[in-house]
């Protein structure tokens, strides 16, 4: 039903792009970068980057930044071409206008974000106002291009509705994906992200040569296996029990109460665990009397404590999922079973459980797909990051956090993070294949 609208008689928005494009070119005469060289502050204008002669007395070299600059300047020229094409063919012209103003914008943003490391010979390099004015003109051109695409019927309002959400996904999810390259660099803060040296797989080699890699992988996998199996089992039992409750009011009450722990943050859980196990004051510690030891210094209890806490917090969650799945079972099956004289136990074994099998299998597989990820709060905060417990409570997530924020070891941290991201991705894809075979409907994709 979408046909390209007639272009004649519609407002030629592309003509407005012409003065803006010329303004972008004029911006090249404004200062783009300021830097300190031999104790004097200089400004370099936008056009200086092509030759580089007047930057730092000519010691400026061709770096990736200059390539970005060239791409930006080329995009500016192409915008002009696009505007001229628009006079003959508005549909093609608007596409080109959009593409090239967008390209120019991206290049210029990268350029201005990386000025800090641009001129090796100079000190305290930074962007000047010319860059920002130029970015502004390019944003306006991009907006005009979108408007023009709408005028000629290439995009409609539905497209514009998605823009804010897509922008957020781009920033929050897609840019960090490309940031995975950090794992292949030896980050040196004095050089900055871009100029740090590539080291190939050295960060990974280093990570896997330490004992840490083995410990965090083992912990993450073992805890998750216990969590998945026990979580599904308890959830299933409680879901079945909830379904059997005769009084609806009571059922609602139980459900609401069991869900309470799901509601609170892991920080509050930490307080609760402390109230039971805290040294000298915890309820359990005092009940044990003389036999008590400092729980926060005794690793052997923590696998059980953490598993118990996880089950306590997640019980309601799994129970509600199973309850809603049990509610979906066809009632006629039970009537038929009763006619055949099946006891409640037989009904459970021969009707309910077989009917729940797809749910159980799917939940199991989906949770296996996330087996490389752990609940950071549970493993970091609940044991109060006690050093004595590190070996038994450290998971990939806590390791990445500590390496990044506590010991500022970006190389190891990013290697562990990339390891987690890639293996996690492969697992999800594999698991989805299996789900598809087991139960087509519940497959993710």
């Amino acid at each position: 039903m979408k046909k390209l609208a007639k272009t004649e008689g519609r407002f030629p928005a592309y003509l407005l792009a012409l003065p803006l494009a010329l303004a972008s070119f004029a911006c090249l005469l404004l200062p783009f970068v300021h830097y300190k060289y031999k104790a004097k502050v200089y400004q370099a204008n936008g056009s200086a980057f092509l030759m580089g002669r007047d930057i730092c007395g000519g010691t400026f070299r061709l770096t990736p930044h200059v390539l970005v600059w060239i791409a930006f300047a080329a995009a500016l020229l192409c915008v002009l071409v696009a505007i001229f094409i628009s006079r003959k063919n508005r549909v093609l012209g608007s596409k080109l206008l959009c593409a090239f103003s967008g390209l120019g914008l991206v290049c210029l943003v990268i350029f201005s974000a990386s000025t800090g490391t641009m001129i090796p010979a100079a000190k305290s390099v930074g962007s000047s106002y010319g860059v920002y004015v130029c970015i502004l003109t390019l944003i306006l051109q991009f907006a005009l291009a979108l408007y023009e695409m709408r005028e000629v019927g290439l995009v409609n309002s539905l497209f514009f509705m998605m823009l804010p959400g897509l922008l957020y996904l781009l920033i929050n999810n897609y840019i960090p994906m490309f940031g995975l390259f950090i794992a292949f660099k030896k980050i040196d803060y004095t050089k900055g992200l871009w100029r740090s040296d590539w080291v190939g797989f050295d960060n990974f080699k280093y990570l896997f040569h330490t004992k840490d890699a083995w410990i965090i992988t083992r912990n993450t996998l073992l805890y998750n296996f216990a969590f998945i199996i026990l979580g599904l089992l308890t959830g299933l039992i409680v879901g079945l029990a909830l379904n059997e409750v005769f009084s609806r009011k009571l059922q609602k009450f139980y459900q609401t109460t069991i869900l309470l722990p799901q509601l609170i943050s892991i920080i509050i859980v930490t307080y609760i665990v402390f109230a039971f196990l805290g040294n000298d004051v915890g309820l359990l510690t005092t009940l044990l009397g003389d036999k008590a030891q400092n729980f926060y210094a005794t690793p052997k209890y923590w696998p059980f404590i953490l598993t118990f806490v996880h089950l306590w917090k997640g019980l309601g969650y799994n129970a509600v999922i199973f309850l809603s799945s049990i509610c979906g079972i066809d009632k006629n099956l039970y009537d038929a079973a009763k006619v055949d004289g099946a006891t409640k136990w037989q009904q459970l074994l021969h009707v309910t459980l077989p009917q729940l099998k797809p749910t159980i299998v799917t939940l199991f597989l989906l949770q296996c797909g996330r087996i490389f990820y752990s609940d950071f709060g549970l493993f970091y905060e609940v044991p109060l990051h006690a050093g004595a417990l590190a070996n038994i409570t450290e998971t990939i997530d806590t390791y990445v956090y500590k390496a990044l924020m506590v010991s500022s070891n970006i190389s190891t941290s990013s290697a562990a993070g990339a390891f987690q991201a890639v293996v996690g991705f492969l697992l999800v894809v594999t698991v989805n294949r299996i789900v598809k075979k087991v139960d087509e409907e519940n497959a993710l994709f």
Partner: protein
Amino acid sequence: MNKKRTTDYTGVISREDIVYQVIVNVLLILLSLAAILPFLLILSSSLTDDYVLTRFGYNFFPRAFSAYAYEFVFSRNGAYVLHSAWLTLLVTIIGTSLSLLIAPLLAYPLSRRDFKYARFFTFLVFFTMLFNGGIVPSYIMWSQVFHVKNTIWALIFPGMLFNGFFIILYKNYFATNIHPSLIEAARIDGAGEWQIYFRIVLPLSLPILATIGLMVGLGYWNNWTNGLYYITDQKLFTLQQLLKNIIENIRALADIAGGSFPVSEIPSNSVRMAMAVIGIVPIMILYPFFQNAFIAGIAIGGVKE
């Protein structure tokens, strides 16, 4: 969840049924107690005299009743605790509103069958659920490129606004509950796309907005990791971050009061628990009002475990 019962009790109640009822109810009463009692332990401990706590430890029954811990917190740190509670509320409101504005707007076009880019953009959304760059690149991006450190935006934007799964939930809801003929009729009446969305689609989608809005709001209220990564300025501590600092080191209470009193003066055992109560109470008060949306959210898989 009270849709259909699978068990039919309309007939004669047999001995077997009674046995089952007893077993099931006892089990669930025990589990309910297990869920509630830890909160009672915290509450009663916060209301016990600090000296008694030091001597006998935390207990379900206050051996010597005392509200001194609350008096202490509110007289020395009252203004600060209220400030951080207010900040948490503000972040929750701004974040949830932004999420409810932006996320359904992204999901709605994806649900439209006549939108030709729908498949491509659905994949873009979906892919974010499968793969992510991890915390290191996002931390560097948010702190070095967007400079969110020690601003309120650090509590609102990084990773919090919405995720791909919410978009898919919205999309499925729109696709099954908004009939295309409704949109077609509105278009014939001369409504534009924006008008159709705000006048017809949104009012018909209040249940899913309530459910996901609640999930997002709870996420903001309970979030402490963004503070951990991006906030060092005490003025921007949310309630959760404040609680986290206090459980790790009671000194945090003295620090936020400007270090004007020695740490040894703090009745630390009872004050800790009093702070936990302050953190729990707001959400417990509101729970009865949002429990239905909360349970619905879990049933559609919207709550992260």
